[in-house]
Every structure is written in structure tokens, then in C-alpha cells.
């Protein structure tokens, strides 16, 4: 034993041609590139404009804070109940259509929240068909839930976000349920009791991760809360920026939200603790499912059907109906004239962002892995954490930070270009898509990093050592050994980033150069003006692209949880 533990460090020590700290330079630079814009905001909060905060506190801030917390709490509770409940249902019971539902329940992930939001708004508000029919049946004053409210926003976000919890909880249940239930049954627990007393607590790390992820998504959401007139911090920043042109206030609000996001990250670590219990369970053994009969079978299938209809089939059917109507008789101008341009812009922005993110993520992940050993992993892990910080930050925060950071640099660069004889006075970075790509990198680095990092796990030190023994240099090892092994992770990461950028709203809204319109913005503007039919066409286009990673997740099954863990 002792000789093994001696020889391993000896081996890895004898090979490096570059010292450890040198391999960390590039990852560190990339991490700085991501942290600096966010760090600029932190400085702001220590130097607040007092009168501005007094005014905010006297006007909109209390509502925004309250709404943000209500929304996060509501979405947290909602996704917990739906995610955990349905994950347990499909893991522990056998009922009609179970195998199908198990995968289909992931479908709502493909719908951007704001698309679901405007479909629900158009369908369930006072002028919408459902409420109108309701009044026809039960009279003018019959009670009906008010969709333009906290309830509506929470409902929509819960329906879109529960798959995060579902996916992680299901994986955790599968991994630990079989042996745990057996032991519990031997000790005389009923299955239900075993679930509440043992399985649920043991799955806590995964469930907490999923719920926090959903809550963060709710906190960072912009489009949905805008449609529902539900003013959160995230929405407030964009509103102040867009309508008041008040970047000072927007920036300071963003700094506040930055801290809320940090608190969330802290809470997640606190609740999840160091434990990852579920990995200790017996892998590979699946819990025997209890077959449901009669009413139980009917209720289980029915519940899945209702959830799926509400969260996917109903909204998509509505979108398709609108889309067909708009296709045949356009209501807003001629969509055909602009469709190609918007698709082109969306695809190229998403494509460029995906490539840049994946390349940078590869450098960071590779550097971090390479320099991590059993004893020394603090610094590399810390760098990785910095590089992936953006994912917890709302788009509005990232946009404010990046603009704040890039503006002075941009003016210097542009002035310099002018001394070189450039006659065009337009700004080189903030006036072009460069700033958008930068902000996307900050925001979505974590998505790329996690995909690549989890696939790098497959690359053992032995492989590198073998390659190096055969005379390959570092670059060659990276190209011929690592790259082929991580290509799946790179592809998955690229697809996820691509789709995230396609759906992205606040960053694009705030930072896009003149005349740059994406499918997401087109959807947003049309829906904000209640042109539901016209909005359906870009929304469906986004949906189709969004389905790709969901199908990948369905095929990946259990392993899929790595892809969304932040």
C-alpha cells in the first residue's frame, strides 16, 4: 500500500515539464475575465449613492425585494413538491405509461419561461378564452384565479423549472433507493414511511441542489415576471435601465442582487453540506417498482398527464395554433421578411458564444484537472469556482457588470484606433456584438465548464503518463488523448450553451448593438404588445432548438444530472 501511495506522486512529479503554477496562468486569466465585471459591482455596493437608496427604499425597493423573495420561496416550494413527488412516483411505482412519462416529464425544460408566461397570460387572464368561457358558465362574478399576480408568476415558473428538481431527485432515488428500502422494510417501516424518514433525507443533497437551481432561475428570470407585471429585483434593474436610462441606479440594484445570489450559493452549500450520501448507495440495483392497479394506476397516470398537459402540451398546442394562423394570415407586418434575419442573428450569436465558451471552458477545466492532486486542489478548485460564478448571476447583473467593466477600456481602445487613422467614431467593443459575446461567456461559462469537467473525469493520469512515456508532448497529449475523450462533453456543453444563448433575454436586451434583434427579443417584444399569434412563430423556433438538449438528457438518463449541476 505504502509503495503505491509513494510511487504515484513520484510519477506525476517526474513528468511535468511546466511547473504547476504555470498551468494555472491561463485558467486564472479566464477566471479573472469573468470575475472582474462582477467584482466591479461589489465595489459599488460599498460606495452606495445614499440619496438614491433612500428614494428607492421609499418607492419601489420594498415591493421588489418582497416580490423577489415570495417568488423564490413559491418556486422553491412548487418545484420541490412537483419534482420530488413525480421523481418518486416514476421510480417507485409501476403504472400505465410510466416509462414514457419518466422521460416526457423533462419536456417543459425546452420552453423558455417567458414563452410559457405569455401563453398562460393570453389563455387565463380576464380577456383570455378560459376565463371568458368560465364567466359564460358560472356568471360574470364567478371566482377565478387571477393570473396577473404572484400566483401566476409562481405557477408558470414552477411548471418550467420543476424538471431540474425531478431530474436530480430521480437520479438520487435510483441510486440509493433499492438498498435503503430493503433495509427499512426489514426494520418494519412501510414504503411511504421509508420514503419520508430515510429516502428523502438521504437524497437531500441532490434535491437541495435542484431546488436552489430552480430558485436561482426564478430570481434571474426577466421575461416572465415582466409579462405578469410582477416586479422583482431582476425585472427592476432592466426597467430602470431601459425606461429611465439610469445606469447608476441599475448598477447599484445589480450589486444588491449580486449579494442575494451569493447568499443563495452560500445557502446551497450550507444545506447540502459536505455530504453526498447518495453515492454511497448500491449502484446498479433498481428498486423493484410497486405495481399500481385500478384507481391508483388511474391517479398516477392522470397526475402525469395533467402536469404534462399544463406544462407542455397545452402551451405548445396553443403556440402551434397561433403559429399556423400567423403563417397563413400575418397579423404583424410580413414575418417572412424578417424571419431569416432574426434566425441568422440568433444562430450566429449562439454559435459564436458556444464555441468561445467551450474553448475557454476546456482551457480552464484542463488546467484545473491537471493541477489538482489529492492533496493540492484548493487553488485549482477555487479558480474553477470563480470562473463559473456567472451562472448564479441574473442576466441584468451580468450586463451591468460587463458594461461597467468594458466601457473605460472600450473608450481607450476606440480612441487609440482613432489615432491609428480609424475615422469611424463608433465604439469597438460595447457598440458591437463583442460585448454580447463577453457577457454570454460570463453568464454561461459554468454550463460549458461542468460538461467538460465531468467528461474529463474519464481521463485518468495513467493515460497521460502512457502518452508521455511514448514521447508525446503536452500539446500532443491534449490533442490526441484528451480531446477525443472529452469531445462528447464538449458537444453536450456546446449544445447547452447554444440553447441558453438562444433563449437569453435580459443580457441581449440591454447590451445588443443597434439593429441586432434575436428570436428571443422578437418573441418578447411581440408578446409584450399582446401580438400572441405573431410571437408564436419565433417562440416555436426557439422551442424546436430547445428540444435538442432535452432529448439528449432523456437519452443520457441518470448521467444527465452532471450536465445541469452548477
Amino acid at each position, binding site marked *: 500500500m505504502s509503495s503505491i501511495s509513494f510511487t504515484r506522486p513520484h510519477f506525476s512529479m517526474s513528468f511535468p515539464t511546466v511547473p504547476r503554477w504555470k498551468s494555472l496562468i491561463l485558467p486564472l486569466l479566464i477566471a479573472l475575465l469573468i470575475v472582474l465585471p462582477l467584482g466591479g459591482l461589489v465595489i459599488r455596493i460599498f460606495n452606495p449613492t445614499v440619496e438614491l437608496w433612500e428614494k428607492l427604499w421609499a418607492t419601489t425597493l420594498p415591493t421588489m425585494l418582497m416580490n423577489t423573495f415570495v417568488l423564490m420561496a413559491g418556486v422553491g416550494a412548487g418545484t420541490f413538491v412537483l419534482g420530488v413527488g413525480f421523481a418518486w412516483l416514476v421510480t417507485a411505482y409501476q403504472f400505465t405509461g410510466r416509462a414514457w412519462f419518466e422521460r416526457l416529464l423533462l419536456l417543459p425544460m425546452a420552453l423558455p419561461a417567458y414563452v410559457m408566461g405569455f401563453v398562460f397570460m393570453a389563455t387565463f387572464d380576464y*380577456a383570455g378564452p378560459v376565463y371568458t368561457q368560465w364567466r359564460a358558465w358560472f356568471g360574470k362574478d364567478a371566482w377565478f384565479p*387571477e393570473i396577473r399576480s404572484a400566483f401566476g408568476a409562481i405557477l408558470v415558473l414552477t411548471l418550467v423549472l420543476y424538471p431540474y428538481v425531478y431530474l436530480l431527485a430521480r437520479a438520487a432515488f435510483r441510486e440509493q433507493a433499492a438498498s435503503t428500502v430493503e433495509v427499512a422494510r426489514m426494520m418494519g417501516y412501510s414504503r411511504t414511511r421509508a420514503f419520508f424518514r430515510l429516502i428523502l433525507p438521504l437524497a437531500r443533497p441532490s434535491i437541495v441542489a435542484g431546488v436552489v437551481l430552480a430558485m436561482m432561475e426564478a430570481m434571474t428570470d426577466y421575461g416572465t415576471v415582466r409579462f405578469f407585471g410582477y416586479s422583482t429585483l431582476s425585472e427592476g434593474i432592466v426597467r430602470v435601465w431601459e425606461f429611465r436610462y439610469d445606469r447608476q441606479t441599475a448598477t447599484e440594484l445589480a450589486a444588491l442582487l449580486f449579494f442575494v445570489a451569493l447568499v443563495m450559493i452560500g445557502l446551497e452549500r450550507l444545506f447540502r453540506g459536505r455530504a453526498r450520501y447518495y453515492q454511497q448507495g448500491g449502484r446498479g440495483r433498481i428498486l423493484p417498482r410497486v405495481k399500481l392497479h385500478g384507481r391508483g394506476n388511474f391517479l398516477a397516470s392522470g397526475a402525469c398527464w395533467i402536469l404534462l398537459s399544463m406544462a407542455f402540451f397545452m402551451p405548445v398546442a396553443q403556440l402551434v395554433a397561433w403559429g399556423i394562423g400567423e403563417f397563413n394570415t400575418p397579423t404583424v407586418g410580413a414575418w417572412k421578411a424578417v424571419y431569416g434575419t432574426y434566425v441568422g442573428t440568433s444562430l450566429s450569436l449562439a454559435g459564436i458564444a458556444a464555441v468561445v465558451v467551450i474553448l475557454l471552458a476546456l482551457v480552464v477545466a484542463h488546467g484545473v484537472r491537471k493541477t489538482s492532486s489529492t492533496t493540492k486542489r484548493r487553488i485549482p478548485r477555487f479558480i474553477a469556482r470563480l470562473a463559473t460564478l456567472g451562472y448564479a448571476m441574473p442576466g441584468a447583473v451580468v450586463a451591468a457588470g460587463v458594461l461597467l467593466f468594458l466601457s473605460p477600456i472600450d473608450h481607450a481602445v476606440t480612441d487609440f484606433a482613432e489615432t491609428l487613422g480609424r475615422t469611424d467614431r463608433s465604439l469597438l467593443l460595447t457598440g458591437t456584438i463583442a460585448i454580447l459575446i463577453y457577457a454570454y461567456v460570463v453568464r454561461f461559462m459554468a454550463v460549458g465548464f461542468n460538461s467538460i469537467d465531468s467528461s474529463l473525469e474519464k481521463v485518468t493520469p495513467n493515460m497521460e503518463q502512457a502518452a508521455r512515456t511514448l514521447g508525446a508532448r503536452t500539446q500532443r497529449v491534449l490533442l490526441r488523448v484528451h480531446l477525443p475523450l472529452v469531445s462528447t462533453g464538449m458537444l453536450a456543453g456546446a449544445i447547452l450553451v447554444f440553447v441558453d444563448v438562444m433563449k437569453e433575454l435580459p443580457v441581449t436586451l440591454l447590451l445588443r448593438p443597434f439593429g441586432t434583434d434575436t428570436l428571443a427579443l422578437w418573441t418578447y417584444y411581440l408578446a409584450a404588445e399582446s401580438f400572441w399569434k405573431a410571437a408564436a412563430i419565433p417562440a416555436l423556433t426557439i422551442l424546436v432548438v430547445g428540444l435538442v438538449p432535452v432529448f439528449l438528457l432523456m437519452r443520457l438518463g441518470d448521467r444527465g444530472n452532471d450536465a445541469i449541476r452548477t
Partner: protein
Amino acid sequence: MMDKARQHDFRADDFHARFFQMSCREISLLRVRFDIDSDTRIIESVLAGQCDLGVVNHYYLARLISGDPEYPIRFFFPNQGEEERGAFFNLSGAGITSAALNYDNSVLFLEFLSSLEAQNPSDISFPTTNFEFPVHLEAEAESILESFGEFELDLTYPVSEYKDYQLPALDLLERVGYGMSE
């Protein structure tokens, strides 16, 4: 539900009381909501019977009427009495940024946009296709707009001063919670 509470706030808010006082004596009968911020949806909500009156930009209604000439919602221009100030209006403007690459042609283009040729009704005219009133004084309005009839504009403040009231106006919208639900 929230209508009652809103109605109370509404009476307390003297700006809005003054705003409607001169045009609508039956203010106490109005059910007021501020939580819908899409003009089209406001009109549709009036149609559905959720509110009696909606404050919108005229071209949203014109657009709906152009799609359905029988559309049952009609216009009502406020403050049209003898001693009253006339209806509020706003202008769509255009400008050239300091970074414009082609200043001379930009000027020519804006001059064209404001010319009689571009302002008179046609398939490509901006006012016509967008159902806006032309800014060129001699230009004719689109036929649906003509059907709205004559009305007086509120000229209390010069349009060039509107920008000075942008922030107070936004403060007011936030105070009454325009476009915000609870």
C-alpha cells in the same frame, strides 16, 4: 378583487382625479386597474368587460379596427369641452447619433420621412402602415384615423419639453403601480 382597493387609491390620487374630472363626471362608477401594461390587451380587456375604459395610444385600436371594421370598441377623446385642455398626445421622433457613419444621407433620409410624399397615405408610408397621425401639417391621415373625427390636442406643454417630464411621469406610473400586479 383588487378593483375595490384600487378604486380607493384612485380617488385619493388627485392627479388622476384631475385627469379624468373634466372628461368623465361618472368617475365613481369606473372600475380601475393599472396592472395591464399592453395597450392591445387593455382594449381586449375592455371588450371582455373587465373595465369600462382604457387609456391607450390610438394606433393600437386603429390596428384592431383595421382587422375587423365591426370591432365594438370606440374612441373617446378626453378634455374636448369649451374650456378644456384637449387630449394628450405624443410624437414619434427620429434622430441621428453622433456616431453616424453617413451624416448627409441620414439627414436626407429624415427629410424624406417627414416630407409630404412619405407622410401622405400609401402602402409604404410610415404613418399609414403604423396608424399614426402624420406630422406633416398638409398630409392626410389614414382613413380609419379620419373616421375618429376632429379633436383638440393638449398644447399646455410644448412637445420639446416632454423629455423634462419623463422621470416624474415614470415616478407617477410606479406610484400607481402601472403595469404591476400584486
